[in-house]
């Protein structure tokens, strides 16, 4: 089977084609990990196009939806075959902030990069971030804030994570008002200006 068609189905956000292609590939005996690679390639391509301003958030979301539905079909085979996610990460919007588009985009791009994502939601307290990290065993956490008024909560969350002794957990921050300088100031390990960069940054931090 030509897996490039499966990759294109994800790129074009054709969820029915992505599901049908995944099913057909598995039925044809293709290794689940190979099918997964084809799907990830689709998300990487959509990420590249986004960064190049060739597509926009809606196209990314539609691609991520196709990826997710294909993954629902693929996941049992991956588990059976012992294929594990690259890493587990926690993501959430900090306390006082209810915005979720940026957070959702990063979560989708991470999932599309074979990362298991624990989405803590919006308006997440520092204590709830700590709890989510401890419960999931995540090695990376993403903190999002859209409002300047909620950025101090980002600093409080970084402090709470460190105070809980989670010194090995890497913290990535992002959101419209956030800058690399602010990330440095509050002691975060990384800053991502957009969801595609968040994938690169997460991989970089995992690799150590």
């Amino acid at each position, binding site marked *: 089977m030509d897996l490039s068609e499966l990759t294109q189905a994800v790129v074009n956000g054709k969820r029915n084609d992505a599901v049908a292609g995944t099913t057909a590939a598995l039925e044809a005996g293709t290794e689940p990990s190979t099918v997964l690679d084809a799907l990830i390639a689709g998300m990487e391509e959509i990420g590249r196009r986004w960064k190049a301003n060739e597509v926009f*958030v809606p*196209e990314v979301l539609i691609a991520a939806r196709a990826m997710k539905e294909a993954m629902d079909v693929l996941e049992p085979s991956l588990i059976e075959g012992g294929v594990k996610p690259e890493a587990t990460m926690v993501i959430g919007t900090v306390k006082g902030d209810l915005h979720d588009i940026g957070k959702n985009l990063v979560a989708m791009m991470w999932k599309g990069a074979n990362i298991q994502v624990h989405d803590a939601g919006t308006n997440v307290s520092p204590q709830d971030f700590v709890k989510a990290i401890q419960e999931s065993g995540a090695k990376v956490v993403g903190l999002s804030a859209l409002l300047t008024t909620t950025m101090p909560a980002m600093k409080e969350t970084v402090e709470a994570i460190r105070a809980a002794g989670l010194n090995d957990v890497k913290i990535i921050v992002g959101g419209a*008002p956030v800058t690399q*300088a602010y990330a440095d100031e509050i002691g975060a390990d990384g800053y991502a200006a957009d969801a595609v960069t968040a994938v690169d940054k997460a991989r970089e931090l995992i690799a150590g």
Partner: protein
Amino acid sequence: MSERLYYIELAKQGLVMPIGTDLVLQECVDPEAVLNDGEALGKVVADSARRWRSPLAVPLMDLRVEKEALALALGADADAHETYHIDKPVDSQTLTRVMAQITRSPTVRMRATCDGIRYVAGINGLVPIGMCIGPFSFVTKLLADPIMPVFMAGAGSTAEDDPDVALFESVLSLGEKVILAYVQMQIEAGAKAIVVCEPAANIHYLSPKQLEAGADTFERYVMQTNKRLKALLDKHDVDLIFHNCGELTDDMVRRFGELDPAIISLGSSRVLWEDSKLLPDDIVMYGNLPSKRFYSDDAVSPEQVAAMSSELVAKMAEVGRPYILGTECDVLSVKGAEQTIRGKVRVMMGCGAASGCRCAG
């Protein structure tokens, strides 16, 4: 169009002002209590206008008021309205009940906003201004996933064949009715202009690629709803001040000009003197210093604020556009960065044409 020449004259006089009511509010002993007290809120709005030496009494840019009212009317818990999402289309019976509740028993916040407008209307020399969220931006706050249905509608799906599109269009229609009712209340309270905040009508919610390919979603979901809102304002001789600090395409800016606002306020991602070419000559442009980054001198320094202010004033004069130097959005008070932010607002205030442009830049 009641006071078009008035705004143009203000611009010609070199008015400079932030959208800075929140800065004044946060100086109060109990800001939260002020939000629920019409007279106290009116005083804050009036004090803010005086602080910035402006006759325009701009209210708080709080885009949660309408959602609270709608969520409560739909049965959301009082402490959960901010996270409330509508998950099924609203039937006509519910619509009638919700609208009756909102119009007969406006929320405390709605009443306070209207009482604040009444308070300002009683002060000579101030223009009482109301505020509402734009219909498209409202629906993005009411749905868990507002982007997908807009994209699907742009790809040809209809309410008949896609439940997500049906939900979006149902909630958009409901939201528009709530906004119109709230604006009507503010007009009856004495508002002479209404700031319509439509920040979500941007490239993140509406794909430029899809729009360029011919999708009519911007027209149907953004323009038509805002045109009906403008018609209500026109009916009462109330001016439109249109605000959108989102990332926009040139065509989006041009289309917003078709709403015929007295003033248009755009975000810092736009180059105002270039956008001037996209808009009719009698629209006053406002903005667009990057106030969302005022919290940090690393993100934007006072010297940069001065230089940007100077450039804006000079370039807008060059293109001959009536222009008010200001901020890209409401300047919010950030805990721990209050003085940093206020310092930059002061720098901006010293940079207007009327002040002789004392900037270093």
